[in-house]
């Protein structure tokens, strides 16, 4: 299934062009790395997909629908950059944080029930964080905190997961295990994964496709297992 389809996307901040005429698609089971130098427009591209910015030209379709009209956002999971700054000092357990990923599905004025708690345990099992369920998330290592935020997205059962620099600020071993985990979810559960990273050397062993941004244009990297 085609999940994201970007056609002729351009974007500028004021007079400064950031992206020009970008085309790409992401389908079920794809594991895509978006790479490029600082300021290449990687995070801008994520914001465009997430509907936080509107393209100056072109269209982004999500599940076949124009992103400007798209409403079913729980199908798209987003893992922000710097888990550490989000979780450090915040007085919440791992299971409380992961449970929050279900809150929009549960809806206003309703309370989580046993099936929701079971779903949280499932997500923690998938990321190997179950033994830490009752620990304060801020007391964990950077890599473990990143897994907590991945679990928070996974718990809502999205079709696609977007990640902004998931391995930033974590050691090499933790980074590799995060890429392993994402690759496994993509292969085994058919989850589409789009990950912005500057860490191409480590990431390329795990991804199925690379989109390289260079001065606002898209260059498809040699490693291409499915078409752009």
């Amino acid at each position, binding site marked *: 299934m085609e999940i994201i389809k970007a056609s002729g996307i351009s974007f500028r901040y004021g007079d400064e062009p950031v992206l020009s005429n970008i085309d790409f698609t992401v389908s079920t089971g794809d594991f895509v790395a978006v790479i490029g130098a600082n300021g290449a427009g990687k995070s801008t591209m994520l914001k465009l997909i*997430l509907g*936080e910015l509107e393209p100056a030209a072109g269209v982004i379709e999500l599940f076949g629908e124009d992103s400007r009209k798209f409403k079913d*956002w*729980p199908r*798209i*999971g*987003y893992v*922000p950059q710097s888990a550490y700054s*989000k979780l450090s000092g*915040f*007085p*919440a*357990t791992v299971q*409380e*944080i992961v449970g*929050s*990923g279900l*809150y*929009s*599905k*549960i809806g*206003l*004025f309703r*309370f*989580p029930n046993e099936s929701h708690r079971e779903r949280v345990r499932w997500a923690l099992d998938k990321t190997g964080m179950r033994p830490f369920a*009752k620990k*304060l998330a801020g007391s964990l290592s950077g890599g473990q905190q990143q897994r907590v935020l991945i679990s*928070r997205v996974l718990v*809502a059962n999205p079709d696609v997961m977007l990640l902004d620099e998931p391995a930033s600020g974590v050691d090499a071993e933790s980074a590799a295990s995060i890429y392993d985990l994402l690759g496994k979810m993509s292969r085994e559960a058919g989850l589409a994964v789009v990950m912005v990273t500057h860490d191409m050397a480590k990431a390329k062993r795990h991804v199925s496709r690379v989109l390289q941004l260079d001065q606002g244009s898209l260059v498809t990297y040699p490693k291409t297992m499915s078409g752009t």
Partner: protein
Amino acid sequence: MLSIFSYEFMRRAFLTGILLAVIVPCIGLVVVLKRLSMIGDALSHTALAGVALGLVLGINPVLGAMGACIVSAFGIEAIRKRLKFSETSIAIIMSAGIGLAGVLSDFARGANFNSFLFGSIVAISSFETLIATIVSVMVMLAFILLYKELFYISLDERGARLAGVPVKAVNFIFTMLTAVTVSIASRTVGALIVSSLMVVPVACAMQLGRSFKQTLVFSVAFSVFFMVAGLFVSYYAGLKPGGTIALLGVASFCLVSVAKSVFTKILRLRRQEANG
């Protein structure tokens, strides 16, 4: 010892004080975690302007404070969105509140205005107790119903919005709750002290809480303790209740901090001994 309860005004003070001690840290926890701790200060100062305006216009000062707080709370949100710096927006509204309160206080001289500076929980009327009770029940109900959304927004507002949580609506309701709570609390503990009741119990609880829920429960427990102990101490020692409550809070914070650091060191030493 319990002769304190033989007076109607003290029974009213305890009832109102405990109700407020329950709701203020609920609001305070979200405010602290959203890194908006100074919002209590800004709103309580504009509450003073509302009090003065109420006295000048002959309106109940608590209602005047409530109106001023609601307008200011939305003012802070509006400026925050325009400037993107929450501290600046709070400072601007606080300046407006202090300025207005200063100018209007000249036209509203008297004990009634001064009682709002440091609070006058033992002098509140039955009508004010009724307003405090209604507001407290409303805030508690709203907090319980929006607990999970407020948790998510405190943790990660952008993430909550992207996940489909109705962040705008929840923030609107929370802003109203904050404004109403601060205006009521200004009457009891005093405008100059209300933000300490909002922040200090939470600061104590955050050192001990092992989860969000536990931190909330500890915040409320600390707050109720400060309120009850503060009322007892101020009654028997002839001190101002608002100031006594705030000082008890700060003293407890220092005690909790020292106790925690000593306890952590002892634990570390024991672990080192156990590991040889």
